């Protein structure tokens, strides 16, 4: 056999393995593609071999080729073959290939369900591991539905290796199959407290992912996470938890309060930067949602900012980056805290790392205020000059403008300054991209701020007049766009211009002809506007000479534009000229033309709101959806209506912007060539002449300016003020104000000290130098005043996971049991089956024959695989769940609000101690708790404290009382390692433990939760559970089963695993303890055969099994301690009993703890050495106990109840418990 194997593999040693393939590819660099296609052919041959080893090798090579970008989905079926190999080596290759190339749409995936299930249940934990790992990459809805149960079972596997994988993949299951979330959630929650830190971490990971999308459903887990946070040392887990709290705090303000203390500790103590950073982030998030209302948050915030500063100052670029990132988040809520670090942030602008510079810029953006705007912008402008990279310079420039224009110019107090800044920007180098941006800013400011118009118009006039000097620079910088705005503003507000004549002269310089066409057009149009004003002025002064002169100059100079190569310019020039000629004619006749002429340009320009077009009301009777003509054929594209207004806007403000962006140099070149060709073939085109003429003209008229002035230093042009002047003015003003303030202060101090309220930080209201009268934007008449932007609701896969996790499960909410797809008998499934058969029969048959066989009986053989699951009764498992859930929900809600309210009563330093206690409430039913002894100490201290308090305060303070009783209850369950699981029966193969659970909602039912543990290395299946019913107590069997039938357990147990099943019992009377006999039967399956075994047991149900933990508060909502006294005195509880037991030195606290835990009692009140406890049965009998520590270490228990038998049984139990 072995020899045969050797021989076979010798045959194949000349197949390429992965390393050969890689080497081959490296050796065929020049014709890689050929080589690979040759290899793929080889692989195809290899895949046809029967030997799995050969196939696996081929698949392994395919994985490599996939990485190089080759599609290997054609081999999907072969991959599945390899996956189904019993050998781990090949299986792993198969699963790896599957994880790389399968996805949810791969259709062969549906064939894999049973194979994956088999691997999941494999004896070898690595088989399960690779299967889960593969599954995580190609989960589909079908797989998730079919395998949910198996994964859930693996979540309680005894091997942490498997357990943690199962926990982690449950997230993928939930994503694909949201219905699984609720049934699986209790177990997932349980894993948060898994003894293995890896499993715990996985559970935290999953819940954090879930909670990130729907945080509110996970609020009830806050106490558990809180405990984890204070106890865990795994930074990875801590980070996740802290991130989760970041998502939870916005929903629950009290949580934020609770977190302050531990977060502060972490921030102070941790050495891990990652943890520190996440803590700070969470603090920020908490602050964002609740402001700084929370006491102590200010200090925390200060601490955070302080730590962030350290991060930013660090030499590690990563920390610096993250520090800035976090700063920008703080900025939103605590701008002042950040503003004090302005120096540091400005410093970051000099950093060599671009991402850091951009972050710093972002921060500055949020930091500006009216006060510091000028200063910040000044610094930024210096940076613009200094920086080299054009991209960053562009970014700076646009940031400057963005900062200034944000929120409708909110922070600008002096628009003169802003206009000056804009003008200065035009003179900066390399501002190429933003010419049009600056231009539109100028227009926007001039149009919207009425008071600035005069200043703006004159500035622009100055710019136009000096354009000849700076135009070279402007052109180089792509700033000509600015001239567009300048000309437009001058024209529009011409009446405000001081010297219109000289402006007209300046605008008529021949160099204007070198500007882009659209700017020339604006020039022409606006010259006329200025001219109109000049005419009016001239006529008012009755200076006919001047008027006529002007007209003639215009006539003369404008005729140049007639020769423009741009049609638009030509046309405008010619119509302008004819108007001018007409005017000249009138002027010669000495008639007044100005008024009539200026009518042409009448009308005020008001800004239009961006939403105006949308808000135009639809006239009555107009149906926009109705067709005006018959609908055109579908192929025709329609121009969307909405684009129309936008287009107009774009054309008005930035006619060239789009063009420039669209055309790459190649495109331009291509177009030029096309154009030239077209021109060549066009007989009407005048070759080159136009261009020639234009060049000559340029040379003739102004020879001096023909060469461009290449001035690298920005000229200081007289008449253009520098923005620095304003900064100085502002600083002066501030200094003066400061001085005044101090004077005032002194003055006030001398007077009445009490009324001094001047604080340094106070944001003073800076009186703007200009009345900032931002013009109201125009809206169409009848526009509705609704500002609500329609929210776009995204369709995300996480919505399906938004479900209430606390509400009880309904019977219909079950995980689907594995069922067989009987209809499908696809070849692949058969292969899997085939292998099984081969194994079983230990026969070698020829494959072809075999195929035929298996095709005949696919269903039959499938049954062999999963025999137990078909007969599973769903209800047995789920109804108990429901009860438990209901109980839990009520509890959980109470707990959370209690847990949170806790901190209201306790001051901050105590909070830390409190931390240890509260979350235990949740674990009242807890299974195993790992508590350290040191936790006892703080709890005790706290209690003492409480007691003292209690004495002081009157009993009317019910909140305090609430605290007292719950605190004790907490301790009760926390200090000792208490487990309510008792051994039910055990043999060498299987071990049973059980616990009883009850609910006040079910008067006659209790649940026995039975833990089955497989002690063997074999598979145990077909487990059935049966109890010999007594008259009083019966096992609930579903369906029409006979009262003697066994209940099948809905799972099988892989080697060394355990699982829990819940069985319901009905009890007609709850006053007596019950003893019942029962049997568990099961099949042990080893390599060769299966054998049936059984285990007999006795189930002992004490009376406490029928008790329900009922905090007294939930029975009587108000003032319960009074009610408790009333209950005791009322005669509702006539039966009495008492015992006195030697407690053997066990302190009272521990006794109480045990009593509470085992007898499901809760403490109503504890004063000194005595405590009152209360519980009720499922049939609502009261049990009241008074436990006193008597002298000599004795403990006396007095009980009252309305059922004597129940009471005496409980007292017996209590006696046993106290005695230990």
């Amino acid at each position, binding site marked *: 056999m*072995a020899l045969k*194997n*050797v021989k076979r*593999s*010798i045959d194949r*040693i000349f197949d390429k*393995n*992965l*390393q050969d393939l*890689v*080497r081959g590819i*490296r050796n065929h660099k020049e014709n890689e593609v050929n080589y690979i296609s040759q290899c793929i052919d080889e692989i195809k041959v290899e895949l046809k071999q029967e030997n799995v080893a050969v196939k696996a090798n081929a698949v*392994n090579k395919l*994985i490599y080729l996939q*990485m*190089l*970008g*080759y*599609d290997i989905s054609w081999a999907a079926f072969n991959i599945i073959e390899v996956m189904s190999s019993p050998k*781990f*080596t090949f299986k*792993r*290759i198969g699963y*790896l290939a599957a*994880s*790389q190339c399968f996805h949810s*749409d791969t259709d062969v995936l549906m064939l894999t369900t049973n194979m994956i299930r088999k691997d999941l249940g494999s004896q*070898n934990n*690595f088989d399960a591991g*690779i299967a889960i*790992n593969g599954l*995580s*990459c190609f989960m589909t809805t079908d797989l998730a539905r079919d395998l949910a149960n198996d994964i859930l079972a693996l979540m309680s596997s005894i091997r942490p290796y498997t357990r*943690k*994988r199962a926990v*982690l*993949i449950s*997230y993928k299951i939930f994503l694909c199959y949201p219905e699984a979330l609720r049934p699986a959630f209790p177990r997932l929650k349980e894993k948060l407290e898994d003894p293995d830190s*890896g499993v715990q971490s*996985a559970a935290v*990971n999953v819940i954090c*992912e879930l909670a*990130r999308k729907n945080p509110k459903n996970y609020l009830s887990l806050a106490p558990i996470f809180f405990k984890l946070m204070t106890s865990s040392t795994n*930074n*990875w887990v801590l*980070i996740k938890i802290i*991130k989760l709290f970041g998502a939870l705090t916005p929903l629950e303000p009290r949580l934020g309060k609770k977190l302050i203390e531990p977060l502060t500790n972490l921030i102070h103590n941790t050495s891990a930067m*990652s943890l520190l*950073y*996440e803590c700070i982030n969470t603090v920020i998030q908490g602050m964002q949602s609740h402001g700084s209302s929370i006491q102590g948050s200010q200090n925390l915030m200060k601490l955070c900012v302080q730590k962030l500063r350290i991060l930013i100052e660090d030499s590690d*670029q*990563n920390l*610096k*980056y*993250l520090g800035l990132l976090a700063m920008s988040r703080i900025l939103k809520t605590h701008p002042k805290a950040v503003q004090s670090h302005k120096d540091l942030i400005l410093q970051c602008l000099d950093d*060599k*790392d*671009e*991402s*850091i510079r951009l972050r710093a810029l972002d921060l500055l953006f949020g930091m500006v205020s009216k006060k510091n705007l000028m200063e910040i912008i000044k610094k930024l402008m210096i940076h613009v000059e200094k920086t080299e990279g054009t991209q960053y310079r562009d970014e700076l420039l646009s940031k400057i403008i963005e900062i200034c224009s944000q929120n409708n110019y909110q922070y600008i107090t002096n628009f003169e300054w802003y206009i000056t800044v804009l003008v200065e920007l035009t003179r900066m180098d390399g501002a190429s991209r933003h010419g049009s941006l600056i231009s539109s800013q100028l227009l926007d400011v001039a149009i919207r701020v009425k008071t600035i118009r005069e200043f703006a118009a004159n500035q622009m006039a100055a710019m136009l007049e000096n354009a000849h000097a700076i135009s070279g620079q402007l052109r180089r910088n792509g700033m000509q766009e600015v001239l567009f705005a300048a000309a437009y503003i001058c024209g529009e507000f011409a009446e405000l211009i001081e010297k219109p004549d000289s402006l007209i002269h300046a605008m008529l310089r021949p160099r204007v002809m070198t500007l882009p066409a659209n700017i020339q057009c604006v020039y022409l149009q606006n010259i006329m506007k200025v001219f109109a004003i000049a005419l009016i002025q001239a006529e008012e002064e009755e200076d006919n000479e001047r008027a006529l002169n002007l007209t003639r100059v215009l006539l003369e100079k404008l005729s140049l534009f007639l020769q423009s190569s741009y049609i638009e310019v030509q046309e405008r020039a010619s119509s302008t000229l004819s108007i001018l000629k007409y005017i000249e004619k009138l002027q010669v006749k000495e008639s007044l033309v100005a008024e009539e002429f200026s009518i042409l340009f009448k009308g005020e320009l008001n800004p239009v709101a961006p939403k105006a077009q949308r808000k135009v009301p639809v006239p009555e009777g107009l149906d926009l959806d109705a067709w005006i003509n018959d609908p055109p054929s579908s192929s025709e594209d329609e121009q969307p209506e909405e684009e129309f207004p936008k287009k107009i806007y774009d054309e008005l403000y930035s006619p060239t912007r789009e063009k420039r962006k669209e055309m790459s140099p190649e495109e331009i070149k291509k177009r030029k060539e096309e154009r030239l060709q077209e021109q060549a073939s066009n007989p009407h085109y005048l070759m080159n002449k136009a261009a020639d003429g234009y060049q000559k003209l340029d040379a003739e008229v102004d020879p001096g300016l023909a060469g461009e002035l290449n001035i690298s230093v920005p000229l200081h042009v007289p008449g253009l003020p520098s923005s620095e002047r304003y900064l100085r003015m502002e600083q002066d003003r501030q200094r003066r104000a400061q001085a005044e303030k101090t004077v005032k202060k002194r003055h006030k101090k001398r007077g009445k000290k009490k009324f001094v309220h001047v604080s340094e930080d106070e944001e003073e209201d800076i009186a703007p130098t200009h009345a900032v009268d931002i013009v109201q934007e125009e809206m169409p008449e009848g526009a509705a005043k609704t500002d609500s932007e329609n929210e776009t609701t995204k369709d995300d896969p996480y919505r399906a996971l938004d479900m209430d996790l606390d509400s009880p499960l309904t019977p219909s909410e079950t995980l689907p049991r594995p069922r067989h797809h009987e209809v499908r008998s696809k070849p692949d499934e058969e292969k899997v089956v085939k292998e099984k058969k081969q194994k079983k029969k230990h026969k070698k048959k020829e494959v072809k024959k075999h195929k035929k066989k298996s095709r005949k009986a696919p269903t039959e053989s499938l049954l062999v695989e999963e025999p137990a699951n078909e007969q599973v009764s769903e209800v047995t498992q789920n109804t108990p769940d429901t009860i438990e859930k209901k109980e839990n929900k009520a509890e959980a809600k109470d707990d959370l609000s209690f847990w949170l309210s806790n901190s209201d009563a306790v001051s901050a330093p105590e909070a830390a101690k409190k931390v240890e206690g509260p979350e235990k409430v949740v674990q009242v039913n807890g299974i195993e708790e790992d508590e350290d002894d040191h936790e006892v100490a703080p709890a005790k201290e706290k209690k003492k404290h409480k007691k003292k308090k209690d004495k002081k305060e009157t009993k009317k303070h019910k909140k305090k009382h609430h605290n007292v009783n719950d605190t004790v209850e907490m301790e009760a369950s926390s200090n000792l390692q208490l487990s309510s699981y008792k051994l039910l029966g055990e043999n060498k193969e299987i071990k049973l433990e059980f616990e009883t659970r009850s609910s006040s909602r079910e008067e006659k039912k209790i649940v026995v939760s039975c833990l089955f543990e497989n002690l063997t290395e074999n598979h145990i299946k077909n487990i059935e559970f049966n109890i010999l019913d007594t008259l009083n107590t019966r096992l609930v069997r579903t369906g029409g089963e006979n009262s003697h039938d066994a209940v099948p357990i809905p799972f099988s147990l892989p080697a060394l695993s355990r699982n829990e099943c819940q069985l319901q019992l009905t009890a007609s009377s709850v006053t007596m303890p019950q003893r019942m006999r029962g049997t568990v039967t099961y099949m042990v399956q080893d390599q060769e055969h299966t054998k049936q075994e059984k285990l007999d047991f006795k189930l002992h149900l004490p009376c406490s099994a029928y008790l329900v933990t009922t905090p007294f508060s939930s029975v009587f909502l108000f003032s319960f301690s009074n009610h408790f006294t009333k209950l005791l005195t009322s005669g509702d509880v006539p039966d009495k009993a008492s015992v006195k037991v030697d407690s053997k030195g066990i302190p009272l606290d521990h006794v109480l703890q045990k009593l509470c835990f085992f007898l499901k009692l809760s403490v109503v009140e504890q004063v000194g050495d005595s405590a009152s406890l209360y519980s009720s049965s499922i049939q609502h009998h009261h049990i009241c106990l008074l436990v006193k520590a008597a002298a000599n270490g004795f403990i006396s228990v007095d009980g009252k109840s309305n059922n004597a038998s129940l009471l005496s049984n409980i007292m017996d139990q209590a006696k046993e418990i106290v005695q230990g």
Partner: protein
Amino acid sequence: MIKAILVFNNHGKARLCKFYQHYTEEQQQHIVRETFHLVSRRDDDVCSFLEGGTLIGGSDYKLIYRHYATLYFVFCVDSSESELGILDLIQVFVETLDRSFENVCELDLIFHVDKVHNILSEIVMGGMVLETNMNEIVTRFMEQDKLEKSEAGLSAAPAKAAAAIKNIDLPSLPKDLKLPDLSKLPSFR
């Protein structure tokens, strides 16, 4: 969640691609190329975070990378992951490789992609971090290796011999990834 893990060398040649979300092979290549362009033009002394490319990502996603000698290790993650945590995770990954291959170098990654995948699968599963403890990772990986060897047994001998012969002419490339100060792992130690 981690969306993708990419390892490529200084020339943009992919050495490992693991996507936790489906992309076609063509898209995958595109992503590798784009990521390479984004990452390679950055100096070594700038920060390790990048705000996503166009294909992979969106505003919620970040590229977090580390550069070791000839290789870039890039993780694409969403906002639920801690940036510094992922940096440490990359370090854990590389150190694990270093331990498993004994002084890992690019050649190891080139010729043993499958092994690298197997190691990675012990660290990250389905886009979620599975294990950060290096000892645990290495132990498990070794155990599986052993299992594999025991399965191969006698029948693997000829193949091994053949591989040894083939390996003789392996080009001698610099065999060191130059792990920078490995003590810098605050989060997991």
